[in-house]
């Protein structure tokens, strides 16, 4: 059983590697440079898939937290915790990529644009989740408290989204990056292909990391069980 899981994980890893390489090739070589932004735009092939998988990750935290509170299955909690960790990683990467792109484009590393702000708040909420988990010793209590934060944090996203957008649009004139338009208007087909391949690659990478991290959590649980029952 475990062997079969291990093999399918290896296959998933191989697929991930191939698709990431393919994505890099399309993004760096096949797709033409952007009409306005030139080569700089190529970072979008990473940037957009990263943030989308991060959102997916927090959605998984939400679903698994609900399931845990309902069924109290330890594995749901391990999955929620794993997804939160990877989600924080991907959100952090998004912010870094955004800054790398923003510096030459806008001339600043950071601007209080609505979408940037939203991403940063999301990052903070789930960093808080990870810190909370590390500061509660009792395992069940940590799982329940984490689940509650996971649920509330996710439900908060639309509200933060709304308030931050209103704040940015009502308070100040819209910035360079208008929220309703992507930075490029006329998209070359090979650009779309590059973006889709990268998106698929990131999804594969995400689920590969998630399964690895979940496996670690399960093994930890197994060790605990063995210590508990072995020491009889």
């Amino acid at each position, binding site marked *: 059983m475990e062997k079969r899981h291990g093999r399918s994980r290896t296959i998933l890893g191989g697929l991930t590697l191939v698709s990431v390489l393919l994505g890099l090739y399309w993004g760096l070589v096949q797709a033409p440079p952007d009409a306005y932004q030139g080569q700089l735009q190529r970072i979008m092939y990473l940037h957009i898939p990263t943030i989308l998988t991060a959102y997916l990750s927090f959605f998984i935290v939400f679903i698994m937290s609900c399931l845990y509170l309902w069924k109290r299955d330890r594995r749901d909690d391990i999955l929620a915790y794993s997804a939160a960790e990877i989600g924080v990683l991907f959100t952090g990467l998004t912010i870094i990529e955004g800054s790398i792109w923003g510096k030459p484009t806008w001339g600043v590393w950071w601007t209080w644009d609505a979408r940037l702000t939203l991403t940063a708040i999301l990052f903070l*909420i789930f960093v808080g989740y990870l810190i909370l988990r590390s500061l*509660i010793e009792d395992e069940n209590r940590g799982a329940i*408290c984490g689940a509650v*934060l996971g*649920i*509330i944090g996710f439900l908060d996203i639309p509200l933060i989204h*709304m*308030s931050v957008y*209103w*704040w940015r649009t009502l308070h100040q004139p819209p910035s360079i990056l208008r929220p309703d338009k992507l930075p490029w208007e006329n998209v070359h087909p090979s650009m779309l292909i590059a973006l889709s391949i990268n998106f698929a690659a990131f999804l594969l990478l995400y689920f590969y990391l998630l399964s690895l991290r979940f496996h670690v959590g399960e093994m930890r649980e197994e060790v605990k069980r063995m210590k508990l029952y072995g020491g009889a």
Partner: protein
Amino acid sequence: MELLRQASWLIWKDLLLEIRRRESLVTMFFFGTLLLFVFHFAFEMPRERAPEMAPGLLWLAFLFTGTLGLTQLFQPERENHCLDALLLSPMDRAALYLAKVFFNLVLMLVVELVVLPLFWVLFNLDSWRLLPAIFMVAFLGTLGFCVLGTLFSAVTMRARARELLLPLILFPLMIPVILATIRTMEVILRSGDASEALDWLRLLLGFDVIFLTAGFLVFEWVIEA
């Protein structure tokens, strides 16, 4: 009804303890006043810039004093294993949630009732007739703060370093309520008319309702964990 009856007993208990121990209210009040002085040293606020600066400063003061109150919110229950005694009883757990939200709300409103006029005096503002409207907005914002704050005060109650942890996870979640409250106050101060800020008020109200419901539903799991 049983829920409200139990909640009112819990509130009676908390108010009585607060009157006798005077731990939260006095500390919160003086901390709030102290913050106004600190703000005054940090910023020169000319009268014409008040509409844009005052809401932020005020709300910052309320946020900090409120957090101070939240970290003490479950203190009586931590002492002497009283939480165990509450959990032993068939009491509806949601009653405890409602009671604690109400109690913290009362504490903060009392503080705000004094700090708001004091702010007007200390910073030489003359728009006294807007004060009731500002207070109403502060009430809605404070409600949102207490609704979410009480839930996470319970979440962090049995964690290590809970006093540090609480604002760390609470503040990011509070962003909608912080933004909405400050902007509403700003619009009111600038235009002198609350109807200009209806969108923000609706968001604030929505936040209060959504998180009161969510807290009401999940509190039982948190407190029994």
